[in-house]
């Protein structure tokens, strides 16, 4: 089955699936592919964007189309670069940064039409309902895993959870994933930052050797779980995707900051792990702000993926744990 690539949590996966192509979230990130991506963009581009470009370029025959959003500048421009370097059709969806329902509504409308044209299919209430039900039931299942992760003590590791979410983001429900149900009494932390990529599992495991991530908010991972479509119609899809907890690029950013604070409280977190990619400036700005306003210790990891597994990273994580323990 051909894939329909997409870049952002604001793009309704149900609409993509209606095309008959498999929705595949572009969430690649590792040292090698990111280096290779420098063929298309400058070194100081987002390392995930570089990885994704490499992935798209090397697998261009797999993709029927790419759907992007204006969510962040680099990911929007990533599709410009993809369009110039491949023959894959590209659709870019206008995702307003401010509270502007009109634009969002019109753009969902546009996206729907374009997807219909692309797939030569007519979406109808029945097919829409069908698709929403399918994805919603998947999310219900994921939420139960997430609840076990959030339980105190936590029952599921985020590394495991990441594997399940990977299946979801790649539209591969049928993939076999093993869930680690190991109960953990380690310090409970919240994970923030730019996208956790498919290749980030190792770093999650490294963190979870000492800590337990019980909740997260970033461009990938559990964001999809905030999508709870009540009414299985186009309007319902629009309503839900528009109203999801705002990403860091929304202005003003108050709702984002509040959301993070509320979640860390709800989950009884004792610390925050903030993982950002190099050159992801907007996230960097917000994280610094969170660090200054939130009442929890923050472990900062900023990298272009190459930090993964380094001894410095291990030292940092261990020192963070020592710090958390000395505080309680």
């Amino acid at each position, binding site marked *: 089955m051909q894939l329909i690539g997409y870049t952002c949590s604001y793009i309704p996966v149900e609409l993509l699936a209606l095309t008959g192509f498999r929705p595949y979230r572009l969430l690649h990130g590792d040292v090698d592919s990111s280096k290779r991506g420098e063929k298309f*963009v400058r070194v*100081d581009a987002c390392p995930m964007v570089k990885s994704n470009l490499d992935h798209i370029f090397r697998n261009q025959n797999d993709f029927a189309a790419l759907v992007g959003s*204006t969510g962040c*500048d680099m990911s929007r421009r990533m599709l410009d670069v993809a369009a110039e370097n491949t023959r894959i059709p590209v659709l870019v969806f*206008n995702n307003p940064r401010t509270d502007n329902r009109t*634009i969002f509504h019109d753009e969902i409308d546009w996206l729907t039409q374009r997807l219909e044209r692309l797939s030569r299919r007519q979406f109808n209430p029945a097919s829409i309902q069908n698709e929403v039900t399918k994805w919603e039931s998947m999310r219900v299942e994921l939420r139960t895993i997430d609840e076990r992760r959030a339980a105190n003590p936590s029952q599921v590791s985020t590394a495991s959870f990441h594997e399940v979410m990977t299946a979801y983001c790649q539209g591969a429900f049928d993939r076999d994933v093993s869930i680690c149900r190991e109960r953990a009494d380690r310090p409970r932390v919240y994970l923030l930052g730019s996208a956790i990529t498919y290749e980030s599992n190792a770093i999650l495991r490294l963190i979870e050797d000492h800590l337990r991530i019980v909740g997260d908010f970033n461009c990938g991972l559990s964001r999809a779980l905030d999508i709870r479509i009540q009414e299985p119609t186009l309007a319902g899809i629009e309503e839900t995707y528009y109203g999801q907890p705002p990403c860091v690029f929304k202005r003003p*950013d108050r709702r984002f900051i509040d959301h993070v604070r509320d979640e860390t409280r709800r989950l009884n977190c004792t610390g925050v792990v903030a993982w950002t990619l190099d*050159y992801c*400036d907007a996230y960097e700005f917000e994280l610094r702000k969170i660090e200054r306003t939130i009442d929890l210790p923050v472990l900062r990891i900023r990298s272009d993926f190459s930090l993964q597994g380094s001894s410095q990273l291990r030292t940092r994580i261990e020192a963070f744990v020592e710090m958390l323990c000395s505080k309680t």
Partner: protein
Amino acid sequence: MFEDIAPAKIGLEEWSRQFACVSDDLIRRYTYYGNNEWGIYLSPPATFMVYGARELKKLKYDNSLAALRLWGFTFNESERLFRARQNGMRVIATMGDLGTVPVIVMAFPSCIPFYPDCTWWTPFFNESTVLLDKASELGVPEASCFVRSSLAAFYKRAYFPKPEALFASTGASCDDYSALMQMVQDLGHDLTWLEIPYRRQRHEEDDPEEFCGTEQGYQYAARFDNYLANEYRRVWDKMRALTGNGDTAELKRSIRKANRLRRLVAKIKKTAGQASVAPFPALEMMVVEFGNLYGYGDIDEWTDIVEMVHNTVSERAAKGTGVLGPDAVPIAWITPTADPLLLNVAENLGARIVETEYVINQAHVEIDENIDPFLALARSFMNASLIGSTSERVRRIRDSVNQGRIKGVIISNMLGCSHCAMETRLIEEKLKDLPVLSIDVPAPMGITEQLRTRISAFMETLR
């Protein structure tokens, strides 16, 4: 006295000597908002150097009265704004928008629009890390755009008065900007956000009726104009609430003023580009171009200056005189340089900049005077190259390069600037048949010998 001087680029000391011959009457003629008490515009560049603009020591300037007025206007902005505020005028910050909101603001009596964003040049003119260091201290990542110095300026309250209202754009404009302006809002300012839609380019299969085009040939869905027009109406409402008045006839007048300025600048660019010898230096040309953003702060004076520049350029072009030799190699310059000195350096090394793409195209097109003013403003803004796809920007660059007799292209990048990071490779690729040099301006005082050598070698290949 200026009539008899042959055009040349001169240094600080020569300007001081030349200035000694300027009559007191002339000095008193150019004042802030035509008001003698508030302050004068004219002084030689040395004055601003004494007040801390250290780079001025290294620069060479055009020796015309027009250029003198140009610099006077630019470097007196800070004082002018404070004086305006002291005299009861309202100072309004328009950020990240570049070219449109100030036109609305100046339709309100005693409201002065200004661009805090222009502080991004201050570290370069001052050869100083004062503002950049403060920005870091305030929590701005060091690899982000130099516009971060404007946050420090807001914090320090020494570069412009506290604005009574701020308008800031977000959306398809620039992420770093928008993150910074969020920090400005957090400092406690009354800030209104504007949504800038992404100008999605038209696809072949799209229904032609829904589409419209810009002056520069971009095609996009007509509804985007309406989104933007609505945002501008919000600016209008906000300004009305602030000032208690608001007359659309004034807005139309203000649009006419903007158009007059824009027409003049377009004529200058054209005349200068076509002249046999470069009639005006690249640095002053850049100041003129960017005046379409910040000139609204004292629009009458600025238009008068630009008019004078136009006369100077036309006269020189007609006579075939200018500031560079006839053998200077015509090139195009892409993306404005953070360091003004670089334009001077490039000229010294034999370049003549005849075409520019400073990502401020929206500020150069005329605003339609015959339709609803908000819609007209929106349409003019849709010409912005940053809000569309890179492919479109590249195409436009391509077109302009083809028209001229351009021998090479210099792309000036900034580390950490997202559009540079993403676009430069594509631009290089698409201009493959022309020699292209892509350079980085790292930071104040970053023009190293190595960078000079690179430009120099590039110019040698073009000869």
